[in-house]
């Protein structure tokens, strides 16, 4: 009887007090910072180097929806033309906003990335229940989505939870590049979710196909048929990226 109490006492308080301001390790690759120093001879090589072709030049831009945050480009540009900051607030309500250029800073990104819609705030602002659909990825996004609910990140404290049935859900979170074999089950889950509902694409696979983008095994028609409300970049995304993204999307403080 006493033993469990001792363990609890020993563990102390594990929950991150404020997920809005929590610090992550300096090595965490978050929002890239681009500058003008890209050497002309590096430019072409840079595009070839990127495993997901997330980089375009003239002007230099990185698509966070494709980027797997491997840092190969940062290491390649010896003069610091690309540097990954550890800024983890990366989610956006617009696919276009995920493309960052040299004018993008953490401040400008945060201001433009999320557009709060009144009806979303009204409907889901205090409680958002989501159904997770894993569709062909590598399972790291699923592990990070699980971590969002653990004792450290405790997303449940904001009324945001993953639920066991689409019937109980206000929307779905898609992880993975959407394999052909998962296309139909994904559609079924979406249609089983009652209206009004939202769709979140979490991770570069879901947003763009990620590292699997060129595989013939994907079937991504779902994304042409239905609107997407929130994009959460990362490969995998960090739990803080997901939680902050959803809180911003809901217009929460």
């Amino acid at each position, binding site marked *: 009887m006493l*033993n*469990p109490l*001792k*363990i*609890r006492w*020993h*563990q102390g308080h*594990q929950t991150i007090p404020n997920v809005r301001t929590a610090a*992550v*390790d300096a*090595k965490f*690759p978050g929002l890239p910072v681009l500058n003008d120093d890209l050497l002309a001879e590096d430019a072409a*090589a840079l595009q*070839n*180097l990127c*495993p997901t072709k997330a980089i375009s030049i003239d002007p230099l831009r990185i698509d966070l929806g494709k980027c*797997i*945050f*491997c*840092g190969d480009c940062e*290491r390649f540009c010896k003069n610091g033309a690309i540097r990954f900051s550890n800024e983890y607030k990366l989610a956006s309500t617009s696919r276009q906003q995920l493309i960052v250029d040299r004018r993008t800073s953490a401040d400008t990104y945060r201001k433009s990335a999320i557009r709060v819609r009144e009806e979303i705030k009204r409907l889901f602002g205090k409680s958002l229940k989501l*159904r*997770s*659909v*894993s*569709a*062909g*990825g*590598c*399972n*790291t996004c*699923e*592990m990070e*989505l*699980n*971590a969002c609910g*653990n*004792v*450290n990140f405790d997303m449940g404290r904001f009324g945001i939870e*993953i639920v*066991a*049935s689409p019937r109980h859900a206000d929307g779905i979170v898609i992880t*993975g590049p959407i*394999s*052909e*074999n*998962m296309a*139909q*089950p994904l559609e079924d*889950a979406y249609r089983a979710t009652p209206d009004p509902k939202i769709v979140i694409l979490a991770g570069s696979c879901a947003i763009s196909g990620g*590292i*699997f983008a*060129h*595989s*013939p*095994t*994907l079937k991504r028609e779902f994304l042409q048929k239905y609107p997407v409300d929130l994009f959460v970049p990362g*490969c*995998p995304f*960090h739990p803080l990226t997901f939680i902050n993204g959803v809180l911003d999307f809901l217009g929460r403080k």
Partner: protein
Amino acid sequence: MNWKITKNNKPIGIADIPRGNVQQLRNALINQCRQGKRVVSFFGHPDRKGMVLFAVLTDDQNSRLLVACADLGAERAYPSITPEVPALHLFEREIFEQFGIEPQGHPWLKPVRYPFRRFDPSQNIGNYPFFRIEGEDIHEVGVGPIHAGIIEPGHFRFQCRGEKIHHLEIQLGYQHRGVEELFVGPINPGEPRFKPHLAERIAGDSAVAHATAYAQIMESLARIEVSRRAQAIRAIALELERIAVHVGDLGAISNDIAHLLGSAVFGAIRTAVINTSLSLCGSRFGQGLIRPGGVLYDLDDELKERMKRTLNKVLEDVIRMSESMLATSSVLSRLEKTGIVTKQQALDIGLVGPVARASGVAMDTRADHPFGNYRYFPIHKITMPGGDVFARTFMRYVEIKQSVNFILEQLEHFSREGSLSDPVENLMAEGFCVSMVEGWRGEIAHVVLTDIQGNPVRYKIKDPSFNNWLGLAIAVRNNGISDFPLCNKSFNLSYSGHDL
């Protein structure tokens, strides 16, 4: 028929592999397996003249690998080997599904994963031919592909009588995204030759293990050996991965028996472990660390000290929580005698990794086919006799302790001499190489065949889940259906690693 003898990470020429007809290969394979050899890989590869079947066996006692192949020519069928060597069942199904080469007399010739390139495109994942038991008292339970939690997709079909499971059939393929094919082929000019990012995403919970196998295979083809410094960092990352998942599994097992304290505490401990990976390489799953030729991140004194402190605390916390939990009778009553796999069953169906060791099978790639730093710091193989959920749980606990101590030893001996990374060039042309790594889930085996430029023409991946999914189906027989989640967590198999 002869076998070409090689070793883990030792390349051979494709031309040096003995070639016979399929009858000769079949007899030789059955003969070797009767003498205690084990199947590592068995796959088809069409070359210019027709289909060739490649077999890789392991002689664990002597740390050797045996390779042979058979020309099928125009033949589209051969007598199945599975009735003699059951561990081959899924390999034969895979070859049949991909190429239509029929193993005649196979007892369970069903689809494996409905790959994009399948012999019979009319086969559809929605029409899997499930086994059915008929009878008044029998009822069927279907679960998935989308599950109630945050889990990869897969379908489980139970045939039950009352609460008791008579039969479970596991149907996979939903995570298929064509990984093996993405490894193949020449690269466009200017693009990097290697695809470590892809290797890290074969099964994300085993990113380090798969990336290690991929890096080793490329280094072997280039006949280079990475520095001891890089080897040590790789071994530390691999053990961190093992600790993180094992701790997470203890939490998941706790959760499934409603031991909420264990669930919360192990969850928090896991966070500390994966955040250690984050401070090593910027990824909580060790992605971005391992590259052909070495590693991308160094281990400085500050990080070494931090790692030591964290791991000592992890060890203390895991011991405190496990000892308390595993001494609770209500916990033991759920774990003991649940989901038993006997040693004979484990050997027959070819289980690998901690679930095999928990059924009393002494096998561990780190000891049997040592690679990297495990050649200098031998790992002791741990086995347990029970084969039940308790044994698989306790195995996690013991392996966490073993891995923490291993890392502490690595940190003690760590030297920053030698380069972090060396160039990997001049890959062996028309070569064949096997790289095996003991991931936390068990034996990972990558096999590569190269063309005259040294580019992969075939990249065959075997995740331990490929061996072990049938083990779960066997384990739940005659158990209550409510114990299925618990049995499932005690195996914790990968869908992405299986579906590829």
